[in-house]
């Protein structure tokens, strides 16, 4: 699998995801700076990492979503390349219009940083194929703006089409219908607030994130 990690000013999980990809895939990703207008040829996976791109100015992910590289990411996604947005990456993907809805300030106002119990809502994607549907897994979150919001018609569509990938077993941020991660209509773009790359080694305190990467390796080689 050939992968790339997009790096914005203020990204801070770019190295975490790069280490996870290197270890799980066996090949280091190409790090791509946000000013690039083209991506490396032959990519199978693009990771949009967590962090605080552009200091969360205007809205979380708003500036990054309009950076030059995101036009190339959108084109690649249209062409079928898998895209994984984690935390700030999820915010960037919604702001860029690759995923519906928006991520607002946590309902409890506080920054939430801890392990959370998730339910795998769909195992029908390359990202989730190594999990069982309805399985409970533990993955850490660390965010201030993780409160997923969309209109009822969009939420109904996401649920009806099996595009909710993960839900919070206990809703930590007020997200509509407990949504922690969603897929696009084609199933090749996943955005999620929890950090699977921070649950891939015993030293992390849990390894429930590993199977997301194993699913990608199985699907993408």
């Amino acid at each position, binding site marked *: 699998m050939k992968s790339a990690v997009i790096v914005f000013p203020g990204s801070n999980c770019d190295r975490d995801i790069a280490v996870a990809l290197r270890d799980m895939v066996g090949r280091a990703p190409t790090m791509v700076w946000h000013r690039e207008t083209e991506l490396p040829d032959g990519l199978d996976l693009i990771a949009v990492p967590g962090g605080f791109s552009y200091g969360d100015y205007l809205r979380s992910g708003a500036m990054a979503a309009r950076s030059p590289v995101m036009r190339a990411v959108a084109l690649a996604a249209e062409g079928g390349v898998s895209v994984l947005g984690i935390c700030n990456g999820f915010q960037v993907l919604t702001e860029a219009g690759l995923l519906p809805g928006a991520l*607002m300030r946590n309902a409890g*106002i506080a920054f939430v940083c801890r392990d959370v119990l998730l339910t795998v809502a769909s195992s029908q994607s390359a990202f989730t194929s190594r999990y069982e549907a309805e399985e409970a897994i533990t993955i850490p979150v660390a965010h201030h703006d993780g409160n997923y919001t969309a209109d009822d018609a969009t939420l109904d569509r996401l649920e009806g089409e099996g595009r909710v990938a993960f839900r919070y077993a206990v809703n930590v941020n007020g997200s509509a219908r407990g949504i922690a991660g969603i897929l696009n209509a084609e199933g090749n773009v996943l955005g999620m607030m929890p950090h699977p790359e921070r649950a891939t080694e015993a030293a992390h305190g849990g390894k429930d994130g590993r199977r997301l990467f194993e699913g990608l390796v199985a699907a993408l080689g």
Partner: protein
Amino acid sequence: MKTRVTVTLKPGVLDPQGKAIHHALEGLGFAGVNDVRAGKLIELDLAAGVSNEDIEAMCRKLLANTVIENYRIEGMSTAP
């Protein structure tokens, strides 16, 4: 030309910051505050000739996230 764009959360969208401000005002002893909604004010200093359509496009494409926010433009261009 100075143009002001006010960005506010749509009615019904939960505004935790507004709620916190509301609680703080009550804590200071201000009675009679029914509700507080927080928003953003963005001032644009625009060259003559920037059209109203351009300002609208700026709002839709970047300044507001129309999934959750409304925007209001004050001081629209008088250019033809």
